[in-house]
């Protein structure tokens, strides 16, 4: 593992302990301090990887941001989670709608991040064979997770955006876990868990979509019942929505099943699990 990946893994572990509360402090005392130390170390390591124009360095920055976002979510710091995920989003998918309000959004964007989203995406894909492949996939997953929750904009916009991010995270995690590169061996093990997590997230998003669409469909239908004549347009719309509900449910079902399979493949015995052992190793070594 490289430095960024090690610190990201250690920061995530500390974030988990922090979220669980003081009763786990016997296993990781001072979780908040440990988490902050590793987050800062990951940032430093990422900034030392190269200039902003280097795709490799930008990918490192994304990996570190993913840990920062996850840590903020664990700590309940919505503003920090927002900032971290927004940067991941803008670096990978381009400027968000809000920054488009400017008259020259493209110019503004290129001043902030010199590298185009296409170049960053290519670098993310290429990172799957690197020691930090899983950390990068995790960062994109975390960004998808927050997009799915973000209540500032319309739900359907969020769904489309989160789904695109989940799809990207899934391909990144899948490539990382399938990597046969020797230097990515540890990353491949972590990516197994990230892949399962992405599948679980997609299942939840699809479920939410299905329930929301079904609710909207009912509203349209009840509105239609009150009128004497049903318009062709409404019938068509309801049919289309019914189709989308069925599709979303099917996606939810298959994603949940895929998540379960992936989890089962991870193995059940905590003590013997090599991932847990390697995580503890990382932690012990890097404090």
């Amino acid at each position, binding site marked *: 593992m490289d430095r960024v990946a090690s610190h990201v893994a250690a920061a995530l572990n500390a974030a988990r302990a922090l979220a*669980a509360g003081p009763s786990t402090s016997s296993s990781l005392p001072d979780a908040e301090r440990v988490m902050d130390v590793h987050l800062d170390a990951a940032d430093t390591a990422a900034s030392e990887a190269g200039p902003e124009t280097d795709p490799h360095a930008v990918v490192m920055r994304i990996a570190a941001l993913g840990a920062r976002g996850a840590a903020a979510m664990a700590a309940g710091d919505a503003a920090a989670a927002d900032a971290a995920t927004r940067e991941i989003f803008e670096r990978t998918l381009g400027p968000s709608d809000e920054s488009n309000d400017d008259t020259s959004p493209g110019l503004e964007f290129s001043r902030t991040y010199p590298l185009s989203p296409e170049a960053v995406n290519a670098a993310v894909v290429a990172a799957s064979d690197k020691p930090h492949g899983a950390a990068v996939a995790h960062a994109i997953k975390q960004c998808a997770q927050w997009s799915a*929750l973000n209540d500032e904009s319309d739900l359907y916009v969020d769904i489309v955006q989160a789904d695109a991010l989940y799809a990207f995270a899934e391909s990144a995690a899948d490539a990382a876990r399938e990597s046969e590169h020797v230097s990515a061996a540890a990353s491949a093990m972590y990516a197994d868990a990230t892949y399962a997590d992405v599948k679980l997230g997609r299942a939840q998003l699809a479920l939410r979509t299905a329930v929301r669409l079904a609710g909207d469909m009912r509203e349209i239908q009840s509105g239609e019942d009150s009128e004497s004549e049903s318009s062709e347009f409404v019938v068509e719309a309801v049919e289309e929505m019914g189709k989308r509900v069925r599709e979303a449910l099917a996606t939810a079902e298959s994603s949940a099943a895929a998540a379960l399979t992936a989890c089962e493949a991870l193995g059940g015995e905590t003590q013997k699990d090599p991932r847990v052992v390697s995580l503890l190793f990382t932690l012990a070594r890097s404090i």
Partner: protein
Amino acid sequence: MFFCLQGLAVAVSGDVYTAKAVIAARTPGAGGVGDGAGIMFAEGLYRNALKMIGTPRPPSATADDDDAAAGGAARADLRLAASVIHARYAAILKASGPQRVAEAEDWAAAAAKEWRAPGYGDMDDACAVAWAARGIGSVGEGGEKAAVHDMTLMMPVTLHNTRFPPRG
């Protein structure tokens, strides 16, 4: 830990069948009776999930209580994930009919104890967890964006603060 991840995945599979049943029940023209078998299937999946996270019975304590062993409490590091699974299970039991209401209340109480979320404005603990539980994929109105289960963090990620001592 990874065995517990399976528990989360099984619980979300349970959510899929709950959602199917609820959508079927509410869709005009589908008879309006819902899919009773779907709820039963979801309950079976949830039973498995509960065993996997180590709480086959409603825990009367959290891991840091003195009598934790007697209450079959969920492991300390699973507290947040467990609370939402317990709350969701309580919702499923309530949907199963009046004969399961007492059992449902036990699970809801366990969930509220595990969650303990002051800082939700005027909502009390039980409301906070019920509100978050509604957002896990399926049942209920208005809670669509409440929470997302995160396997990496072993907790539901919400837009609200979840950082607090387990017993106030």
